[in-house]
């Protein structure tokens, strides 16, 4: 069964303190690994798609990487506006998007 586990559950950082979020997955026939950002009371906002091990994508202070077992979302010099819940999801041969429970990130000024 396709499964996604995210860690840590919650992360508190000082502004400028870089860190990484982890997404471990098992999936049959990976079609894509997706990262989303969700602010309170809003729908998930698409960030990245990674398709194969070794692939990396960047957007502003965020960089996503992918191996055969996990993905990392690296946050460099975060700002308070980066505070949100970050969701990881995988899509396998079933076409369904399987989400993890997310990492709640709080960046303090």
């Amino acid at each position, binding site marked *: 069964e396709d499964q996604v586990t995210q860690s840590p559950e919650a992360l508190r950082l000082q502004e400028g303190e870089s860190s990484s979020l982890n997404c471990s997955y098992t999936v049959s026939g990976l079609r894509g690994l997706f990262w989303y950002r969700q602010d309170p009371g809003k729908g998930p906002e698409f960030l990245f798609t990674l398709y194969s091990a070794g692939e990396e994508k960047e957007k502003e202070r965020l960089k996503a990487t992918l191996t055969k077992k996990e993905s990392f979302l690296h946050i460099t010099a975060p700002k308070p506006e980066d505070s949100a819940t970050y969701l990881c999801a995988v899509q396998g041969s079933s076409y369904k998007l399987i*989400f993890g429970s997310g990492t709640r990130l709080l960046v303090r000024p």
Partner: protein
Amino acid sequence: DTAVSQTPKYLVTQMGNDKSIKCEQNLGHDTMYWYKQDSKKFLKIMFSYNNKELIINETVPNRFSPKSPDKAHLNLHINSLELGDSAVYFCASSPSTSVGYNEQFFGPGTRLTVL
């Protein structure tokens, strides 16, 4: 312009009632989805339609029935509402199910509270 919109934003109703949630996307996407996010924040797929055809139907009670009048709309009708149906329901759309075109874009959600 909102890419994926849902109405209503909030829905409070009594057990046993029937209610509908509407979803519209103006992105020209072929595929639409309904998700349920429970109190623990897990997002779970319920249904998916591709060009008005049902392609994903998860283990969801028969009380839930999706309807797609055209590829820009996917509505969710719920009969005989139960307390456990309380959750936030998200609509989403993607260009297609093909790799490279399968990024999903979500609506703002509908918070359903069953009393």
